């Protein structure tokens, strides 16, 4: 048995770099990364069988439920190679898989010498995996191609081995085949990690340099910072210093994860573990930063540090206005664990007090919202996401607009919007469909390559705003779920944009304003007025709904006054029943927002600001 009892395994700070292998697993959601990781924990016996649970490393409920990894993990696995019989320490660094977290991924990759490229052999590689693979290759990582789920009846290992071989330039027979579920091939994979991935190289006598690849807030222990030591060493009581800020902290505790935290005497060259300094806010211990020693600082930081930059903005408002302080508290708390989250108070005529929040992308936005609702028991309305615009007004003033309601009313010289380079992978039968969608969304075709006979990579330049607005949903539904998408920002471009306002009974509803391309303003106005007509219940007066650009009305609808709102019968036994119904309706009324004289159900805001699929849900809810 090649597992090594933990007590006998090489200890942290006493493990020679030659014995260490640092690797990560690059995989798409559902391709079985967590199952494979679980299997590795089991085979190396760091987790006893009876303590095993599915997705062991995903700590947050939200991670387990969605089957995604939001925060990284680093697990120390002792392993005796089946090839040379020597003892090794494998550090598995589990990385987030989503495009929103590309920067975090790149830092995790920078902490490794090798990557396991894990692909579901019934589905083939997906766009995000490909993007991360390219990132790994740019970081000069050794890639071990692996096909997972070979136990599945729909497995096509030959086809996808061919595809992977072509992508990374190896032979199809070099592609390993495993099943995380049954364990087949996993021991061989561990042996290949030892054999193929180079040991870390560093200077033990040089000033300490350790790369922060993740930073997690723990309510009991403060911020837990995950590091990879490059040069020198980290020991408890060290006075450490953050390279970017120069701020000094004491290393209160140093340890490794195996897979529960284990305090150690330190971390040496090439080792991966954690440091606790007692800081309470992840922004003081930022991903990508370099830790060095206060007394003997390194001359140069490790490469690649970047401040996270929000790409997508949305307003978050408490459903119940009284919850505003609670929302502030919840955001403050969440920010301790999410350095990329930015927010500032905002007030909306329609929605009251809330926050304008900046996110890395749509998934980040969804996750933040869900965590706020779940962890702080809040009900929230989020406004339609938008990107950041650079606007130059007629008098030459330049401004940055993160909220449509701030869009200047007067003459506008020029508007620039963020542009991304998008990569779509899909079966070739969908080429036409995808090109049509990208064309509709103002895309410019950059190129197209066949990955295999029937799978194609299509590259487009697209305005980020178009992606933010239901592009992914459309892509998935038009390709029956087969297409995958990845994108990266490539700068800004000038565009012919206008602000469309929505008016209820002649009053502007700021939450519904949007900045859209001039050619789409009419379609947006028609769609939004139509949606609102469906979503707002009839009231005792007629409600005109209009869409306007400046003073010009471009679309109009009308909700007729309600004619009948009465139950015909009310005799003896009906009276209690009816009073109780009234009490229930009183609760329902609390879910209404008054916009001028118009009662607008919360669901109308939510549905109007999301995609069509949600409308039926909202309508059903409104009827309850």
């Amino acid at each position: 048995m090649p597992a090594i009892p933990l007590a006998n395994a090489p200890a942290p700070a006493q493990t020679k770099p030659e014995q260490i292998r640092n690797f990560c697993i690059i995989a798409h959601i559902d391709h079985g990364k967590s199952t494979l990781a679980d299997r590795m924990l089991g085979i190396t016996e760091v987790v006893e069988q009876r303590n095993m649970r599915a997705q062991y490393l995903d700590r947050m409920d939200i991670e387990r439920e969605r089957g995604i990894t939001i925060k990284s993990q680093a697990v120390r696995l002792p392993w005796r190679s089946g090839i040379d019989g020597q003892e090794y320490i494998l550090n598995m660094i589990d990385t987030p898989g989503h495009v929103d977290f590309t920067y975090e991924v790149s830092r995790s990759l920078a902490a490794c010498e090798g990557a396991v490229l894990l692909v579901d052999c019934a589905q083939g590689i997906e766009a995000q995996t490909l993007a991360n693979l390219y990132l790994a290759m740019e970081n000069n990582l050794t890639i071990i191609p692996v096909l997972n789920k070979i136990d599945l009846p729909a497995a096509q290992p030959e086809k996808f081995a061919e595809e992977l071989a072509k992508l990374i330039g190896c032979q199809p027979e070099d592609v390993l085949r495993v099943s995380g579920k049954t364990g087949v091939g996993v021991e061989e994979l561990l042996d290949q990690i030892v054999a193929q991935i180079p040991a870390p190289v560093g200077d033990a006598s040089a000033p300490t340099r350790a790369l922060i690849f993740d930073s997690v807030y723990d309510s009991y222990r403060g911020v837990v910072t995950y590091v990879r030591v490059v040069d020198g060493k980290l020991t408890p009581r060290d006075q450490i210093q953050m390279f970017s800020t120069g701020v000094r902290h004491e290393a209160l505790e140093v340890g490794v994860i195996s897979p529960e935290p284990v305090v150690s005497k330190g971390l040496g060259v090439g080792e991966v573990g954690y440091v606790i300094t007692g800081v309470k806010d992840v922004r003081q211990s930022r991903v990508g930063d370099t830790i060095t020693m206060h007394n003997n600082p390194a001359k140069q930081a490790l490469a690649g540090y970047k401040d996270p930059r929000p790409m997508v903005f949305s307003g978050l408002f408490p459903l119940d206005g009284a919850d505003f302080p609670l929302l502030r508290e919840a955001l403050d708390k969440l920010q301790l664990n999410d350095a990329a989250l930015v927010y500032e108070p905002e007030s909306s005529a329609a929605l009251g007090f809330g926050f304008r929040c900046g996110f890395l992308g749509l998934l980040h936005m969804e996750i933040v919202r869900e965590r706020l609702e779940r962890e702080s028991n809040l009900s929230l309305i989020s406004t339609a996401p938008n990107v950041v615009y650079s606007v130059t007004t007629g008098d030459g003033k330049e401004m940055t607009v993160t909220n449509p309601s701030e869009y200047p009313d007067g003459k506008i010289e020029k508007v620039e919007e963020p542009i991304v380079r998008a990569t779509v992978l899909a079966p070739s039968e969908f080429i036409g469909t995808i090109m049509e969608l990208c064309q509709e969304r103002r895309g410019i075709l950059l190129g197209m390559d066949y990955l295999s006979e029937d799978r194609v990579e299509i590259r487009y330049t697209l305005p980020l705003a178009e992606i933010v607005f239901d592009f992914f949903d459309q892509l998935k539904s038009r390709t029956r779920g087969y297409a995958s998408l990845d994108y990266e920002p490539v700068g800004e471009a000038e565009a012919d944009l206008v602000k469309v306002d929505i008016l209820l009974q002649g009053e502007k509803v700021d939450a519904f304003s949007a900045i859209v391309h001039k050619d789409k303003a009419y379609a947006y106005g028609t769609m939004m007025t139509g949606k609102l007509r469906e979503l707002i219940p009839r009231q005792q007066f007629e409600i005109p709904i209009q869409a306007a650009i400046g003073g010009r009305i471009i679309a109009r609808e009308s909700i007729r006054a309600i004619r009948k709102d009465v139950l015909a019968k009310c005799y003896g036994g009906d009276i209690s029943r009816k009073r109780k119904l009234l009490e229930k309706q009183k609760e329902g009324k609390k879910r209404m927002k008054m916009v001028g004289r118009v009662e607008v159900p919360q669901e109308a805001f939510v549905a109007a600001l999301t995609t069509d699929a949600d409308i039926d849900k909202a309508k059903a809810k409104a009827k309850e």
Partner: protein
Amino acid sequence: MITDLAFYVHIPYCARRCGYCDFNTYTPTELSLGSDPAAISTISHSYIDLLLQEISHAQRVVEETGSSARVPTIFFGGGTPTLLDASDLGRVITQIQSGFELAPDCEITIEANPDTITPEKLDDLLDAGFNRISFGMQSAAPHVLAALDRTHNPDNVERSVKLAQQAGFKELSVDLIYGTPGESMADWEQSVDLALSLPITHISAYALIVESGTKLGAQVKRGEVVMPDDDQTADKYLLADEKFNAAGFDWYELSNWAKPGSECRHNITYWQGGDWWGAGPGAHSHIQGRRFWNVKHPTAYGQRILASGNPMADEEILDSTAQQSERVMLELRMRSGISYENFDAKVIEGLGEYLREGYLVSEAWQRGRLVLTQSGRLIADRIVRQILF
């Protein structure tokens, strides 16, 4: 002290169940008596015995408070009260009379199914003490009756109302239902016209309410039956109101119209927060801010009566907020309306909008009262919500 106490007497039996009905009523099949409607007669006598015991119980309850009650109205509803022998029903009236003081002008109503009416039956009902009869007509259109799953022949309505008048009933009412799936505006007009051609003094007209748990409810839920548009149903109300007015029937509650002096005093008791005792399974009572109701099933009801004489299932003491809610909810339905002088300034301001939109009668508003206009009656629940929250 002498107080008024009305009586509602529930007869929980029907020959068969109509598709839209969720009332507390049972068919012979449901009571395991076989499928013959006549089977009801085998249990009706013993059921009346139970009612008599409950009335004695009511008498004790009133006596315990140290007051005595005068009975201004008695209403026999169901179910189908006319399924039972008039003499059995008469025993209930006699029991009430012996336990309480019957007002000299006591209004005693029976709900009648047109199919169960014969000249002899009518004579017997008059002899038993009934002086008001209310027929379930629902519609004149056979396909509408079929959609409601009603069995009666529309011709029977005309025949039985006329027989009742000939027999000597002075107060005659018919119930109509509008807004049934498949009912056209012409169907409804025909029903209204037929009702108005009869020698009646009172009309109730209800928009159909689809209740969950009924056959119709299930059909609507499955999409087999589509409910008519609310706007059309509103138009039907307007049509009926115009025609009733023209024929000399004035609205006094938003679903009830009467010739002057023929308003149903029993129902007015409900809407004015008066006291009444409901006897029979599932019947609700209200006495001085306390609501209580009986166990629902006739078998359980019988067991309770025999065990303790008290069939009450539960009760509810209304706090002042609940009393105020009920007062607004009920009195606004009536033509007399409700005074708004004690309302919050903010509520009054909100109501001003309804006044401007023509939902409230402006002369009444000047006098400090809320009275619904024709269009206001159609959105009465909305206005109640505006007042209460």
